[in-house]
């Protein structure tokens, strides 16, 4: 419930931001009309929220709920209904593995805030989030439409090929945070801990020490979340809407929310691994900020601060997603494949080898 309570509004806010940011980029006002009549009496806040289009979010959500939920006659009904549900499950459950903040407990240790603190955090995120492709394939298949079918096939091929490079890109990070001889970990909060140590190397975010990994991960993230320029599964120009061509109303909105959830979780993982998690700036970990502000004794405040910083970074990442989407054209399907297999994968392997050697040299 907590997950739904956080993720749905966040995804909704994303859809709003998408519309507003696209409007800014394209030089038009964007959504700025909807407002409940009683809210327009609020002096300053009312007009501001109206101009920001904040109420379109509510209107959109209500529209999806109250629209007639059409199931076309030619679809395979069971799977057609199952697909959006299947899309939501991995999208929401990955959130539980992502630490979203930290507080300093009575012993003076930084403890991560996380719903399910499993030691294989990163692996769990990868494993569960890649289940999302099943919903796309299922939707494409169950729709019994040629466009959807093509979209589903494209999506599955694309996701599989990018998952590989993505996983290879994070291996250097794991190698770095796992000293030989000690108990191995894939915990995401461990990665953040390693980026908040004192000293030059300790405080550097992994994006600086392993830029190629970060770059590969970022590109794969775009592909994994089906965002432009890799939105092969949708590509509304040639496949109309791809796998969700036949969907409407609430079922369509579930796909929509799932996409945003994937974006949010993906950005979160990216930030945790490469951009220092809840540390505000490189070489400036959260604990020293807390010390500066004299709030080390107030775990709640530190926790809120860390969540705020983390959320701010996620929003910045989401902005990047949207910025890219409204700026660049779309790849062709075979070009996406070529980029994935012929460029990113060799680069990821090469990067891995170089990092292995570098780590071996440093540790000796």
């Amino acid at each position, binding site marked *: 419930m907590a997950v739904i309570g956080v993720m749905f509004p966040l995804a909704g806010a994303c859809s709003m931001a998408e519309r507003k940011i696209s409007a800014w980029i394209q030089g038009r006002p964007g959504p700025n009309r909807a407002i409940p009549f009683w809210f327009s009496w609020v002096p300053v806040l009312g007009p501001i929220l109206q101009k920001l289009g904040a109420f379109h979010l509510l209107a959109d959500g209500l529209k999806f709920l109250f629209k007639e939920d059409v199931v076309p006659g030619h679809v395979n009904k069971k799977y057609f209904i199952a697909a959006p549900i299947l899309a939501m499950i991995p999208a929401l459950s990955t959130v539980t593995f992502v630490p979203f903040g930290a507080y300093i407990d009575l012993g003076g240790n930084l403890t991560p805030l996380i719903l399910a603190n499993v030691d294989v955090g990163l692996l769990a995120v990868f494993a569960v989030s890649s289940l999302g492709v099943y919903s796309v394939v299922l939707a494409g298949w169950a729709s019994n439409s040629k466009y959807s079918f093509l979209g589903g096939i494209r999506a599955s091929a694309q996701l599989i090929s990018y998952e590989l490079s993505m996983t290879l890109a994070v291996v250097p990070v794991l190698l770095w945070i796992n000293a030989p001889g000690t108990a191995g970990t894939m915990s995401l909060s461990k990665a953040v801990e390693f980026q908040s140590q004192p000293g030059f190397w300790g405080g550097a975010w992994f994006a600086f020490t392993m830029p190629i990994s970060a770059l590969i991960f970022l590109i794969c993230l775009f592909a994994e979340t089906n965002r432009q320029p890799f939105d092969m599964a949708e590509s509304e120009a040639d496949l109309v809407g791809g796998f969700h061509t036949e969907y409407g109303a609430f079922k369509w909105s579930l796909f929509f929310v799932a996409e945003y959830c994937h974006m949010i979780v993906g950005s979160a993982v990216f930030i945790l691994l490469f951009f220092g998690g809840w540390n505000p700036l490189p070489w400036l970990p959260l604990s020293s900020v807390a010390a500066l502000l004299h709030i080390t004794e107030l775990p709640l405040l530190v926790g809120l601060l860390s969540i705020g910083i983390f959320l701010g970074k996620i929003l910045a990442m989401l902005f990047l997603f949207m910025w890219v989407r409204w700026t660049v054209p779309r790849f*062709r399907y075979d070009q996406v494949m070529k980029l994935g297999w012929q460029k990113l994968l060799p680069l990821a392997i090469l990067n891995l080898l170089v990092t292995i050697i570098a780590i071996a040299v440093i540790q000796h």
Partner: protein
Amino acid sequence: MATDMTFPDAAARTAAQNHDQEKMHLSMGPSHPSTHGVLRLQLELDGEIITKADPVLGYLHRGDEKIAENMTYNQFVPYTDRLDYLAPLANNAAYAIAVERLAKLEVPERCQAIRVITSELARISAHLMGLGAYGIDVGAWTVFLYSFTEREKLYKLFEELTGARFTTSYSRIGGLARDVPEGWTDRVLAFCDQFLPILEETLTLLTRNKIFMDRTMGVGIISKEDAIAYGLTGPNARGSGVAIDLRKDKPYSGYDKYEFDIPVGTTGDCYDRYMVRGEEMRQSVRIVRQAIAKFPSGPWYATDAKKIFAPQKGKVLSSMEELIQNFMLVTEGPQMPAGEVYFEAENPKGALGFYIVSKGGGVPYRLKIRAPSFCNLSVIPKVCVGEMMADVVSILGSLDFVMGECDR
């Protein structure tokens, strides 16, 4: 020129019976986001590779040519708006010139200059639309919005000139609907001044964009021979390296007085066609500037054609002679001699031709329209084969057709 036109539905039916061939038959359109109206492509796919593409036309057929036989020459002007509805001003001018050639009527220089300016502005507007739609086709939405902002400014100018934004109906046989309003040419110049930098900015979004280049370079190549054989005209022919431009080859409406270049592509792929359109907009601005710089004064309609061009309204209400003239023109139509004429004008999409057979009187006996989009589309079965499914979209976008004039 053997275009293999099969019955799409029959083809689909036979394919359904032949289960051994594992090819997918996909009907793209008539209602599809990137078939630019109501074009339908009957595709045969092997995986994502096109093995066959049949354009199916006629979803927007209105029988314009037959309609023309039942109305006077001036009454047909609004129908020309609806041919290439992205450049109605150019269609109006082309049609009027065709009928004037039939009547062997020379319009004054001012009228010619106004027609040149409006045609070139229409070309800019049509190419902007083509550019924006092309952007959407390859997935770049922002280009579309940028170019539409500019189009909006053009529409303001059109509205001021003609009273309508879209369906302008500006030409009359032997002249124009009205003279240019006070200060309009200055506003056109101001538009040109601010337009060029914005055009450069918009084109920058695509021209050197790696993804855009990947999507368009080497895709949909139309060879020079094919371009000629399939009767391609306009930017599509020029993109393939065929330097034909009726404004230079057979100058009309005083185009020989202006200096401009014809951009020509080298490989004939989608990217070349895009580049040609971009350059043509710059050249159009050049022509508009020249036309306004030496904007002639004098009458804006043929004053010596009493049986063709209606008298001014003020005189109709005050003078018997003009009242009779007006009455005759409205009821009988502009009086044409017997004969036939074919005239082609360089429209944004290519050579728009009108073939008119007259037996005298105010109504054409037969009016045939040569629509550039129709001829340009004929090349689809040739270029699409062997390309990917997503390439069809970039090819269609680069051919920049309008179904309004294709189906007529």
